[in-house]
């Protein structure tokens, strides 16, 4: 009698992680944080079926636990606000569609509580009512266990102890520099710089001694930014191409004639303008209508994920590039979504298949 080996005994399960990343990537492409957009993607992928076909009770419970832990992972930093919203919606969706009875609970660890509160505050500030509704609902139906740690610990090493790389595209970073370029920040900076220099000139005893600022600050900054954008462009161009060929959304069509570079910077301009609009909405719209108007991808916050980006930027791009060129050679045959760095390359072709 072979003893039954559990498939879902680890904290995470790679095929499920891939499915979830696929769902989140689609959600990300919509540039929306609306729940109805999320639920449409969920239905389109037939995600409720993910619980089907597990007949053993204990195994089903373990699998439910894995789904909720996976959702929680994307609900917490370092992911961008939009991905974290996706993680929250996923917790709600898994909780309601799981087949275990009584339902397995979402495990919120004490150490992550502050991040959850910050997320909620950002959501209030941006007026994302559906985000708040979903969260409050989970609390109200007692879907949460307030725990010490995210997982049960029994001194067992996980089967794959290597740290899963974080999905690069899910981190609130990729458009930050582009947005900076397309906003009026540089112009503003130049003006301030000029004003400062003028004042300095006018003060004779200071102007000769003080030189803490660079005269060409804004041009140097401009140069750094475009250098970064060129690198980013090079690395991400495969991704952009893939997105287009695999996606026949109508709104994408108008971009068809542009080069990838133009397309992505125009996307950044679009995002930036949406974002500014949503700031205004928060101030101007009546509270009751907020949740419908604020369609911005990014939270208005420059939350902790952004702070962290800055700290990690030094090392991250290098290893990203190294991994990318090594694991995912971007030939025409094998265009892979760049954020799938956690997946081995033999999965690439399967992943390319569209769900529609």
């Amino acid at each position, binding site marked *: 009698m072979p003893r039954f080996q559990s498939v879902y005994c680890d904290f995470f399960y790679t095929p499920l992680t891939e499915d979830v990343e696929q769902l989140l990537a689609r959600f990300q492409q919509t540039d929306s944080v609306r729940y109805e957009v999320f639920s449409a993607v969920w239905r389109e992928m037939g995600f409720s079926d993910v619980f089907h076909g597990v007949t053993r009770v204990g195994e089903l419970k373990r699998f439910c636990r894995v789904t909720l832990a996976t959702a929680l992972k994307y609900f917490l930093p370092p992911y961008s606000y939009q991905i974290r919203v996706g993680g929250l919606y996923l917790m709600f969706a898994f909780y309601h569609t799981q087949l275990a009875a*009584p339902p397995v609970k979402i495990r919120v660890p004490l150490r992550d509580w502050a991040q959850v509160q910050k997320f909620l505050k950002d959501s209030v500030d941006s007026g994302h009512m559906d985000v708040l509704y979903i969260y409050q609902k989970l609390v109200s139906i007692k879907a949460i266990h307030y725990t010490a740690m995210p997982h049960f610990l029994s001194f067992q090493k996980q089967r794959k102890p290597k740290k899963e790389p974080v999905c690069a595209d899910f981190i609130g970073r990729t458009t930050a520099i582009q947005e900076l370029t397309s906003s009026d920040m540089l112009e503003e900076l130049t003006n301030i710089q000029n004003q400062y220099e003028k004042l300095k000139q006018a003060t004779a005893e200071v102007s000769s001694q003080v030189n803490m600022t660079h005269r060409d600050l804004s041009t140097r900054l401009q140069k750094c930014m475009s250098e970064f954008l060129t690198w980013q462009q090079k690395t991400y161009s495969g991704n952009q191409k893939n997105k287009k060929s695999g996606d026949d959304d109508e709104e994408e069509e108008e971009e068809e004639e542009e080069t990838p570079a133009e397309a992505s910077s125009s996307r950044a301009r679009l995002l930036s303008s949406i974002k500014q609009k949503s700031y205004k909405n928060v101030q101007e719209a009546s509270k009751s209508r907020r949740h419908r108007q604020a369609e911005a991808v990014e939270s208005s916050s420059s939350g902790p994920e952004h702070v962290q980006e800055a700290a990690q930027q030094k090392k991250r791009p290098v290893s990203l590039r190294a991994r990318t060129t090594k694991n995912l050679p971007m030939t025409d045959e094998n265009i892979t979504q760049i954020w799938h760095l956690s997946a081995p390359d033999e999965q690439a072709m399967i992943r390319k298949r569209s769900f529609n």
Partner: protein
Amino acid sequence: MASSHPPTSNSNIPDYEYLDVNTKPFHIGSFRNEWLNRLKPSDYSYQRDDDDTFDANFMKEMGVGAETMAELKSICSPDSLRCHPEGQQPDTELVPPEPMLQTLIQRKKRQDHRANQKMSKNRHDLYADELERLIVGRKPESTADIIPEGEIVLTINVYYPITSERINTSRPHMSLLMTGSHSLAELRDAICCVSDLQVCGEFSNTPDLAPDFISKDLFKSSFFFFEGVFYNDMRFPECQDISKTTIEWAKARNYPAFTQAKMEDTRFMDLTIKVGFPYLYCHQGDCEHLVIITDIRLAHKSDCLDKKLYPLLIRKDRLLTQKCTVCHLFIGRWFTTNDQYAPSDPCLFCDKCFRALHYDAAGNKLGEFLAYPYVDQGAFN
């Protein structure tokens, strides 16, 4: 993930010592207070708001109108997650045909593979499920016995004795739920180990007298060892501080000082421990078990809320029992040596076969042999 948590000065907030393996030590009572300070009482209350109350609260808190609220409710309804038309739900026992999700593709592969292999139904799972259905949200008859809201619930794994060869140590013998108000003595009483039931002595002349005294009553001393402290069971006059030898031995060799305390005076709330870390339970002099606290959290409305049912056994490993050599049907209760009737030496018999073979109708011993009572590892199934 660890990188996203800057080192916190608050040592009551559990964090990993070794990623995904075990935490740093923290004080359980203080951990509970940290949670209670952060949460609203309604968050961990056993009462669930009805939908109208929820709506009213949400509208007030967020300043939204009735129209928006109605819209939110309809958009964010769990119905939005239904992937099949109503009334056309597929069989949830089956992996859908031609799945697109990786998880389902893998599951289908495994099932096709398994269809060729006969697998036994998993009794552990069934048992665990039965248990869970019995205890979910169970309320005591008297309100005095209800577990208070905001109480700590611990999940504790107790493993098989370390010396036992036939046991795979990665599989816990039993998992228990206990609350922060329980003492370690209550945990000790909940741990069942065959060596507590081992009967000492040879009883071939008086088999009827054999099971009357067992080791648990004879050798009462035992201890837990958590974070450098021996917690001794000192409830009975016969109890000895069996940690003394170890403490003195360690002192003589300049080991960090160990201390001792009484099991019966120590509640889980008072402990400073690491979650996920293996600790020691020792009884019967040399029967040693690993004990791991795998989870600590606040009590939840769907927990068993009857204090009297704790410590609550939630999972129990079932070993294959050793069957009688003669009938191959019943669990072995006796083993004999120097036995002319036995096909092997030693040999295991069930009570019925043992008596039928070795005694006449009047109960007189036939021939020469030695007989020892035997308690099977699976005796607690």
